[in-house]
């Protein structure tokens, strides 16, 4: 029992409610929102520290013994995800303070933002499938509001497919849940793990597993279910799209990793075999899609898809090393991708546009912004010694280890294509001389609100790259817990096991 697990969920909701009470006091509301984001980060770090010190933590909400009540569980994977959520939440909250004009930050913006953070934390902490569904809906509601924040025309054309396809995904998830409950009589994931060990209806279980794969696959932007993502992620304000790019698809990946290690482990050859093919296709289509784009945020959006492919690859290969790679990749990618979206905002402030044809000369005019782009971009592409290099290295090593040479070749090729895209942005936006055009390169003096979060995230990327060993150790521990879930099951069900 560890009450600390409730704080990463509770704090954002308290902040959201309190910020609504301060509806008419925008300055106080803003201060409260920033304090809430920092508090959430502190709570996440506290959970992480407790998990580091004492292993897997479980909290039975309301003292209802598992599997009857709702369990909150934090293992190393959850704790790592929480810390990254806290970091990105704080970074984007600070950036939003610099980006959005006061009238767009007033009223309910902060409430939606913190509800989203609370929903994310809940999804990472819950040990119950129906509860996971509820957290998904909480996130969705908040993200729908944020997706259309500002209400420009393009946001509606992006939001309509986003809303419809995400609703469809949650409905599929709910249907899978219902059938799973019908077959096993439980929705507690640890309890499901035990039931699966002895369940006879394996064919039906595999069918349900694919329902879950489709539902979480839509969320994660998996091939061929990703079309909503590049249609919508470039439309909202920068801070919001950075938070979405860093977190939302990764919740889908997290849910896939969680369910396909803890629950659906009965037929690894089928489920993970299909996942392997999908992962390869996701990587390739994402990176090819990016090559065809010519605007900053759309290239980045397509790269989310190809990177999700790498993470799925780690899950699909199903060896300890591959899972370690997947967890490492998740941590690295969330920070780098959110940062790239934030940098795209900095460059838009200078050029007035994100159309690469009309950009240029940023390196000469703003070397600092160029450096801040360089670090996450080439980390994404996998340059040593940045964080992306280690993540890719682990995954390629894992696929070579079990002699999946084709997969390793695809991973290397997609990495090369990623370099191509990043170099394209680098040359077009930063290196080539500024094209004579209708948009003036404005004299911009950056407020610390915008520069600070970008610098902080770039620094974290550097630290993960240079000090890869501790992060590797953490990812390795997380992967071991996932491969052998007995400790997880024990932590949840100890005591009142029926």
């Amino acid at each position: 029992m560890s009450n600390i697990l409730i704080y990463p969920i509770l704090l954002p909701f308290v902040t959201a409610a309190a910020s609504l009470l301060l509806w008419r006091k925008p300055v106080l509301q803003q201060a409260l929102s920033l304090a809430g984001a920092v508090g959430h980060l502190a709570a996440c770090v506290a959970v992480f520290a407790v998990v580091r010190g004492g292993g897997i933590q479980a909290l039975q909400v309301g003292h209802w013994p598992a599997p009857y009540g709702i369990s909150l569980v934090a293992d190393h994977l959850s704790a790592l995800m929480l810390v990254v959520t806290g970091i990105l939440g704080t970074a984007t909250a600070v950036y939003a303070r610099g980006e959005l004009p006061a009238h767009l930050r007033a009223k309910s913006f902060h409430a939606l933002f913190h509800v989203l953070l609370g929903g994310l934390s809940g999804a990472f902490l819950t040990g119950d499938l129906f509860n996971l569904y509820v957290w998904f809906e909480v996130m969705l509601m908040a993200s729908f509001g944020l997706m259309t924040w500002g209400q420009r025309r393009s946001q509606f054309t992006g939001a309509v497919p986003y809303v419809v396809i995400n609703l469809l995904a949650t409905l599929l998830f709910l249907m899978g849940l219902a059938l799973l409950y019908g077959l096993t009589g439980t929705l507690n994931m640890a309890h499901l793990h035990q039931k699966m060990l002895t369940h006879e209806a394996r064919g039906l279980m595999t069918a349900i597993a694919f329902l879950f794969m489709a539902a979480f696959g839509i969320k994660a932007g998996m091939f061929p279910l990703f079309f909503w993502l590049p249609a919508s992620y470039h439309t909202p304000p920068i801070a919001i799209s950075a938070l979405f790019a860093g977190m939302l698809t990764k919740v889908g990946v997290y849910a896939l990793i969680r369910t396909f290690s803890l629950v659906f482990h009965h037929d690894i050859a089928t489920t993970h075999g299909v996942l392997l093919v999908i992962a390869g296709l996701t990587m390739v289509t994402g990176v090819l899609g990016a090559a065809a784009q010519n605007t900053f945020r759309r290239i980045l959006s397509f790269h989310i898809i190809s990177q999700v492919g790498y993470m799925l690859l780690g899950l699909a290969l199903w060896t300890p090393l591959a899972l370690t790679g997947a967890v490492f990749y998740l941590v690295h990618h969330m920070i780098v991708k959110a940062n790239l979206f934030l940098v795209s905002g900095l460059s838009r402030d200078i050029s007035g546009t994100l159309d690469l044809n009309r950009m240029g000369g940023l390196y000469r005019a703003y070397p600092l912004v160029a450096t801040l782009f360089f670090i996450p971009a080439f980390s994404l592409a996998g340059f040593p010694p940045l964080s992306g290099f280690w993540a890719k290295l682990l995954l390629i090593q894992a696929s070579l280890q079990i002699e999946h040479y084709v997969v390793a070749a695809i991973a290397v090729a997609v990495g090369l294509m990623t370099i191509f895209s990043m170099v394209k942005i680098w040359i077009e936006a930063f290196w080539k001389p500024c094209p004579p055009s209708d948009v003036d390169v404005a004299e911009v003096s950056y407020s610390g609100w915008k520069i600070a979060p970008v610098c902080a995230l770039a620094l974290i990327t550097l630290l993960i790259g240079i000090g890869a060993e501790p992060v590797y150790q953490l990812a390795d521990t997380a992967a071991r817990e996932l491969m052998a879930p007995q400790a997880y099951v024990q932590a949840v069900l100890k005591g009142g096991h029926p």
Partner: protein
Amino acid sequence: MESALAIISGSMVAGGIFLLLSQNLVRMLFGLIMLSNAINLVIFAAGGLTHTKPALIKTGQTILHTAVANALPQALILTAIVIGFALLVFMFVLFYRSYETLGTVDTRQMPESDPEPDHGAGTTTTRLEHGP
């Protein structure tokens, strides 16, 4: 009874998907409503249909003495109905606002989302048009 419910929810899912595939936002909305109700029926059927009493404990007693119906699927459906309703209301508003902004409910006539919206340069001049 189970097979009847299975057929009903199956045809509702089919109808919902058919409506979702149309180009009209209003029909898509109806499709999603149908789908979410179909899935509530699936939860109901998957929970096991039995002809027994509701799970009520008589006054003065602390535990149940007779076999009763499983109350959990009903709780799940209630939660799902509430959440589904909230989402549908949001979607209704979103579709209405996008009809107001874009002037059409036909998804084929909606403009391709702009490649990348340009904003004014600099923090001070960042413009986001406000809806009408």
